[in-house]
């Protein structure tokens, strides 16, 4: 049977935008798709999933041990449903990257990581070497395709659907040897980096946590999310969940403004799909200018206050 299953991601109260992006990838594969929502008391989330355009059905597995996103527990439930599906898709977020390879191994298949385009039901393209090369990958047709969807490459599907919701009981007991302790959220109230249409980002040049305040203020003025380079995170100027790049978040906002970021390949790979890249750097030779649509060679400590003034 040729049908696709999408693993929904949520935080207990809201569906993550990555799920609607996976739906667009599933639509490109061209088969019917269902969405699986795992968690505890997730009726409201199931309804959000049911509204995603094109969804044929939503399956809910509701159990206390699924409340936290532990891959060991979630993978067991997906594997229990796998038989009915030719394709199983999850997002390329940390949730999906933790979970999906586990499912692939339990099903005895290799995983296609980070699908950026669909060329056929078993033919995809994906980036490797931090986006410095693109490969055409063909998955074997006689086994399940398990894949992560590179969320920055896909637009979210609409939400005017009304799929039927079916609830199932959990089929596996909770793992005893892996225990969830807690989550310390970093970002706060600003727009989510991975879905924000505008992102303001800064690097090592900020020189302190205090200086980062002006970046937040500018971001708030234009309703932007805030990102950072690895150097800024490593130096403790901002929390880790703000890191953009190969080891941080891969994002595709309409507008990305980089202040004092040199433009190392590991950073650039995280912003390649942005609509417009703006770079402000005092070094005219900084590699970030090679990818910038609009560049300004200047001191960010002058530019940011001026921008704040002109935009407020």
């Amino acid at each position, binding site marked *: 049977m040729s049908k696709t299953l999408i693993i929904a991601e949520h935080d207990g109260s809201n569906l993550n935008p990555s799920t609607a992006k996976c739906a667009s990838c599933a639509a490109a594969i061209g088969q019917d798709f269902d969405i699986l929502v795992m968690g505890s008391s997730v009726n409201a989330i199931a309804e959000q999933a049911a509204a995603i355009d094109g969804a044929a059905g939503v399956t809910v597995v509701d159990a206390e041990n699924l409340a936290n996103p532990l891959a060991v527990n979630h993978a067991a439930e997906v594997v229990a449903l796998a038989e009915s599906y030719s394709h199983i898709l999850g997002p390329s977020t940390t949730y999906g990257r*933790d979970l999906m390879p586990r499912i692939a191994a339990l099903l005895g298949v*290799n995983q296609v990581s980070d699908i950026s385009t669909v060329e056929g039901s078993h033919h995809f393209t994906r980036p490797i*070497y931090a986006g410095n090369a693109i490969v055409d990958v063909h998955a074997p047709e006689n086994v399940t395709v398990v894949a992560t969807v590179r969320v920055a490459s896909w637009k979210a599907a609409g939400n005017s659907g009304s799929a039927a919701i079916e609830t199932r009981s959990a089929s596996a007991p909770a793992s005893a040897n*892996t225990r969830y302790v807690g989550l310390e959220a970093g970002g706060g109230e600003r727009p989510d980096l991975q879905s924000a249409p505008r992102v303001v980002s800064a690097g090592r040049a900020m020189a302190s946590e205090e200086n980062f305040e002006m970046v937040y203020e500018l971001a708030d003025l234009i309703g932007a999310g805030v990102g950072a380079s690895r150097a800024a995170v490593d130096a403790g100027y901002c929390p880790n969940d703000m890191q953009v790049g190969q080891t941080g978040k891969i994002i595709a906002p309409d507008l990305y403004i980089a202040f004092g970021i040199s433009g190392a390949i590991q950073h650039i790979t995280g912003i390649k799909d942005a609509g417009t890249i703006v770079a402000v750097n005092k070094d005219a030779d900084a590699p970030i200018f090679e990818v910038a649509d609009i560049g*300004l060679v200047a001191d960010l400590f002058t530019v940011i206050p001026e921008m704040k003034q002109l935009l407020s």
Partner: protein
Amino acid sequence: MKILVGIKRVIDYNVRIRVKSDASGVETDGVKMSINPFDEIALEEALRIREAGLAEEVIVVSLGGNECQQQLRTGLAMGADRAIQVDTAEDLQPLTIARTFLKVIEKEQPGLVLLGKQAIDGDNSQTAQMLAALWDRPQATFVSQMNMSGESVTVVREVDAGLETIEVDLPAVISVDLRLNEPRFVKLPDIMKAKRKPLEVIALDELGVAPENNLEVSKYSPPPVRAKGILVEDTAQLVTELKTRGLV
């Protein structure tokens, strides 16, 4: 307790990657090769655990041709006790690599396996999760802090929403992130010493692993290039440009 550390030989992270003109791969001729940066961090952590008296032996393992002995020797110079090269001419995919690690685990019975969160060539980020599933032991991925306490380890994971803490019983498979530690530099005398440390070579088929369900790569392409941008003179011009384009 023994700790097993996976070491992959990859193109150095500073090298500018070029796709070959016949689309068959990326240029590797005369290109600098190194230990995958995440694996260096995994090894550093293993060494610190041993130095804290919580492990007796650190074993570095690499799957590849003879050339990966170079990276294993660097691992020995950093302080690993011995090395295993699983010899194969093939470019193995994560499922096969995980199955191979499982065979090595059966032989060595480690209490902890430390891998990188991803290899920076294929950017797959699969091997640790697959190994944990096949071994039926806990997995902790993208780890930026570790605290060993007897039979279990408490880890902090870098996830999209912030920092997640979980506790896993040993043995476990842990994949490490960049902020876990700063790897030490190798000193010259250590390189000399490393030459005398044991490096065992096992052929892949001796372990009874056959590559299966492989993905086929038909073509390598360079990424699309962005159109050339413009330079503006000052902040006022920048803001005007953003407004004209309807971006703010």
